[in-house]
């Protein structure tokens, strides 16, 4: 039954390493997609969710390390953790910049912090089955979320419309560096899930939770930003704006997002079947932040 087994594309595997990136935010305007606050803020929601979310990934993966018995996968996880740590730090460092521009994200991020630290944190569970179950549940949730981060990473690498509209180069570099690393390591979370568990029912269940939670948090984040933006009088976010931005190409299109759902739920799904490692690696050889990181790392050795 080869068509019902996840089929990895071997050529898409690459060595994963964290990059010591640096971004200077002092010249990034509040609406970094010029004249398009809705697109700006919809993408800005990433800065609200990722710092806490990726810290949580690492927290969970530190616990899952002892359950990984495949040396190659173990190396992937080690690289994955470092990349996620840098993503979390880099997005976290955008938050003070938003605050300086009059858009204090703390009311929202404090809730995201609660969600990941408390609701999805280590519960007081007896050691043994209950604790293992909660760990597996979270590992599967991370695999589902990583399906979307890889989807978004692939999208941002190809979002030429943002360049055409003169989006801020530093912010684009942050997003594309992050997106490229998400594409690079897109298989890791799924491989970990398959290695430690792989239950199809759990995959579907956690996908449903993760998808609903992401949709809920994202629309709420976009509305939060639009309503609190000091430069907008009657800022509103709506699904219609999202749909139209998708058609313009400044945000992922609604049909493409809908189509990605059955792909993840297919029994033959493997993340290496989507996106291009070559494109991601190519961007990382050009990204100003990644190039500077490489220079710094070589010097340190």
């Amino acid at each position, binding site marked *: 039954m080869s068509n019902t087994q996840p089929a990895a594309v071997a050529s898409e595997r690459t060595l994963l*390493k*964290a990059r*010591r*990136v*640096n*971004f*200077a*935010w*002092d*010249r990034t305007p509040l609406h970094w997609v010029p004249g398009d606050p809705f697109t700006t803020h919809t993408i800005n929601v990433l800065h*609200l969710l990722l*710092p*806490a979310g990726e*810290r949580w990934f*690492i927290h969970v*993966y*530190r616990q899952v*390390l*002892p359950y990984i018995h495949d040396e190659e996968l173990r190396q992937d996880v*080690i*690289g994955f*953790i*470092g*990349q996620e*740590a*840098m993503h979390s*730090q*880099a997005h*976290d*460092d955008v*938050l*003070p*910049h938003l*605050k300086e521009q009059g858009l204090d*994200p*703390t*009311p*929202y*991020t*404090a*809730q*995201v*912090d*609660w*969600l990941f*630290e*408390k609701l999805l944190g280590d519960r007081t569970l007896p050691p043994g089955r209950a604790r293992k179950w909660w760990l597996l549940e979270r590992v599967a949730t991370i695999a589902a979320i990583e399906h979307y981060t890889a989807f978004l990473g692939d999208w941002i690498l190809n979002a030429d419309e943002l360049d055409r509209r003169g989006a801020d180069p530093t912010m684009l570099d942050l997003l594309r560096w992050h997106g490229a690393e998400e594409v690079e390591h897109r298989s890791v979370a799924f491989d970990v899930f398959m290695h430690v568990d792989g239950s199809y029912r759990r995959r579907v269940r956690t996908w449903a939770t993760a998808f609903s939670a992401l949709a809920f948090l994202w629309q*709420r984040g976009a*509305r*939060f930003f639009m*309503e609190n933006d000091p430069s907008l009088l009657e800022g509103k976010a709506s699904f219609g704006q999202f749909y139209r931005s998708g058609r313009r190409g400044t945000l992922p299109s609604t049909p493409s997002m809908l189509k990605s759902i059955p792909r993840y739920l297919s029994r033959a799904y493997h993340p290496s079947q989507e996106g291009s490692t070559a494109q991601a690696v190519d961007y990382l050889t050009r990204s100003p932040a990644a190039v*500077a990181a490489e*220079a*710094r*790392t070589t*010097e*340190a050795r």
Partner: protein
Amino acid sequence: MPPALPLPRLRTVAVAAGAALLAKRALRRRIRKSPLWPLPALDEPISGRLQRRSTTGRRLLVTERTSPADGVVRLRLEGPDLPAWEPGAHLDLVLPSGLVRQYSLCGDPADTGAYTVAARLVEDGRGGSREVHTALHEGMEVEVRGPRNRFPLTEAPAHLLIAGGIGITPVLPMLRRLAAEGADWHLLYGGRSRATMPFLEEIEKLGAEGGRVTVVPQDEAGHPDLAAALADTAEGTAVHCCGPQPLMDAVAAALPPGRTLHLERFSAAGTDPADAEPFEVELRRSGLTVPVAADQSVLAAVRAELPHVPYSCEQGFCGTCQQRVLAGEVEHRDELLTDVERAQAMLICVSRCRGGGRLVLDL
């Protein structure tokens, strides 16, 4: 076939629709009252408040380049709303080539519009000072990180400050602070010759009353008499020293009991693998003690015993290998942790034990 029940079904639909409408309205009203309802928030939010700012640089404009002594350049770096700092703090300069070097702040802490650093050209150095001298000019922008302080001025009844050459840079703001407070202080300032020693005029003015300053240029007076200066101190004196490694070693060796010693290893000692020493690490929770060889990281030594200890970048920037330190003096070699975090944690991939002693980790 059961008889069709169109009426009750219609009623059910109507009731459900009505209830849904009411629920939606109530929800709307509730959300309007507090837009971020209904998620609870973490009491002490974490995101955006880590203070690490590890991935953010700040681009400052070089507005003034002067030479306060032979072979020394002083740069004034201007920018809006700069973070505050205390005497002893240093700044990371990201040079145009990507090299990162640390320079002590030697300006006025009250000036939030500019930082001042000074660098001596080291002919056989690692390239950083040469680049500062050749590549940084007025009107250029340079990226900085920090400031950070691992050499703070401690509270003490009396202070002895010992500076060697360019090691005067972190000491100068300390002098100004102590002089302004009317504290009991002395400075011993050594250098090759008066022409190569920066800030002499200002320093001699600060110490004009009561002979607080002893300037020892090597070409006139040889090496400073550390033993005599240290022996003159009263019990409880805080000794702050910044200069070349041999000077700091000599001060440490001649320190009488009852005085506290504070060193600033400004010449990036520590990042040089040549001066790493072996030491021991106790893993308290595992009940193990592992030796760490001079050419080995704590991480490598610990991994041999605990294969699942998390790590990733192995260069001190991703933070994955952070561990709590229960005892021992850490020589921090990372670029991530804040001074507050450093008080109780370390990155075991790069940081070591100071002076070849023993560290106790919560592992």
